[in-house]
């Protein structure tokens, strides 16, 4: 397969934008990515759009804001992993030689309050099981029991996220919080607290990718970031008594750690790197335990040591394994369809030295992305 590179990214600031449509936000994100990449809209040959809550064919309505060129517009719904899936599909199509230039767009407008993940008449809702943080809470409780971690270590994920978000002009929350404030916020599903939950968010993201062989027409090599590794999956069934799980875990559990480990291995192998080579990482911290579980499954922290790694500051911007330098889902916000594209944007900024006040040191060359949703997860390795 051909090499494929990212040439530019754009965001509409994440937040609550009641007066804006997804077209308004998507248009701004796409215009930003086109400007960043130097690729004119007329050169875009295909668009892949990630979105969940907008109506039928919403992707076309957003892409057409930039002009009606008649290109195929693919609408992808993969819950919170929609736009990383869009990027992966675009990367495969360009890599296969079908297209040279592709646009990836993610957008969402969400309602306030807990994300409704199943029908109100479903068994899971009627019995009160379908509370989104419950699965994270169940796993955090077990982790604390198994490894002697503390609730404060999990709360520290949110403190760190907000510190980074305060430095990100595109973040929903640009305000620091203290450990005391996180610990004092009310429980949603014990031990997960309100300030450890990602908010509902409006926003949009866009990424322009091209075949490496045409990239020099638009940007110098220093602005080209390779989509070197990728892996996607929905989590195989983990039999009762296996190491990977408790058994009985079916469907696309976004906390399927055994599945994430396998995907990470595949993505590293494709990219020809290992977890020790990773300079900066984006993980799916929909709730604060997400960062701790993910960095272990991705191999950048050892099993059982993720909580301590966060507590000791290793995942800070200036730590040895910086994670979610843009504030993550917790502080940057989580407009579900747009989140994967924002993760890609942050890694692109970091690898091209445009991280601003939150730039990681030592000339980063390898970035890692983990974006998970109900029904599938993606791991991406970006290199320069």
């Amino acid at each position, binding site marked *: 397969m051909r090499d494929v590179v990212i040439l530019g990214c754009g965001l509409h600031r994440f937040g609550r934008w009641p007066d804006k449509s997804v077209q308004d936000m998507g248009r701004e994100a796409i215009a930003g990515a086109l400007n960043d990449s130097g690729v004119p809209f007329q050169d875009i040959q295909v668009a892949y759009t990630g979105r969940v809550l907008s109506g039928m064919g919403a992707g076309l309505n957003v892409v057409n804001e930039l002009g009606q060129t008649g290109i195929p517009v693919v609408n992808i719904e993969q819950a919170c992993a929609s736009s990383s899936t869009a990027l992966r599909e675009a990367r495969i199509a360009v890599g296969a030689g079908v297209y040279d230039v592709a646009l990836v767009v993610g957008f969402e407008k969400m309602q306030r309050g807990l994300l409704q993940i199943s029908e109100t008449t479903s068994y899971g809702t009627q019995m009160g099981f379908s509370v989104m943080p419950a699965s994270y809470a169940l796993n955090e409780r077990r982790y604390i029991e198994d490894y002697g971690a503390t609730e404060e270590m999990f709360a520290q994920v949110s403190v760190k996220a907000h510190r980074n978000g305060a430095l990100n002009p595109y973040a929903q929350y640009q305000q620091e919080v203290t450990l005391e404030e996180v610990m004092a916020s009310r429980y949603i599903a014990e031990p997960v607290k309100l300030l450890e939950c990602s908010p509902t968010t409006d926003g949009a993201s866009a990424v322009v990718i091209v075949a490496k062989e045409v990239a020099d027409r638009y940007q110098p090599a220093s602005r080209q970031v390779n989509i070197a590794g990728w892996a996607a999956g929905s989590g195989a069934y983990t039999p009762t008594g296996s190491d990977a799980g408790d058994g*009985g875990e079916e469907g696309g559990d976004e906390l399927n750690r055994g599945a994430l480990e396998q995907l990470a291995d595949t993505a590293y192998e494709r990219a020809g790197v290992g977890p020790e080579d990773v300079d900066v990482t984006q993980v799916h911290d929909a709730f604060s335990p997400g960062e701790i579980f993910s960095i272990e499954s991705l191999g950048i922290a050892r099993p059982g040591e993720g909580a301590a790694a966060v507590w000791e500051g290793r995942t800070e911007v200036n730590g040895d394994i910086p994670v979610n330098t843009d504030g993550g889902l917790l502080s940057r916000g989580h407009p579900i369809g747009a989140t994967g594209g924002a993760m890609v944007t942050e890694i692109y900024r970091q690898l091209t030295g445009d991280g601003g006040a939150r730039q990681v040191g030592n000339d980063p060359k390898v970035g890692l992305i983990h974006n998970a949703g109900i029904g599938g997860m993606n791991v991406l390795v970006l290199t320069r």
Partner: protein
Amino acid sequence: MTATRTPAARSKGATSALRLVPLREGMFKMPRSMNGKPRLLGQRCTSCGEQFSNQREFCANCCQPTLENVMFGTTGEITTYTTVRQQLPGALIEAPYVIARVRLDEGVSVQTILSEIEPDDVEIGMKVVSCLKQVTEDDSGNAVVNSFFKPANKRRRARA
């Protein structure tokens, strides 16, 4: 035994026409009274031996259509739990309530709601037993019930 002596009717002080109705069909064997222990219905794959706490046509583990129905016992152990403090719209259960993951003695894990215990008294490793609880009432006034779990051993509360 007369109909008026069924515990459901007794507990509601209602007429003999009232029955126990499961929230969802096929999830547990209805005990004869509210005080009985529901046995969860599941499946076992005759090809690979994996057991499931739900009903499917094809085995999730080996993909063969070789699942037979089984009835599990009524006891297990809590492997983890969370106290939900925010009310979920549409839920018949009122917050706060405790969701627990219970590993049945047969090895299968199920998600359940705990009953007859204060959230602060729940512990990982606690032995639990199934029980029947009413979650709502249908249009005819019948008790709509589901299986829950409660501590297997009566424990004295540590606090006064």
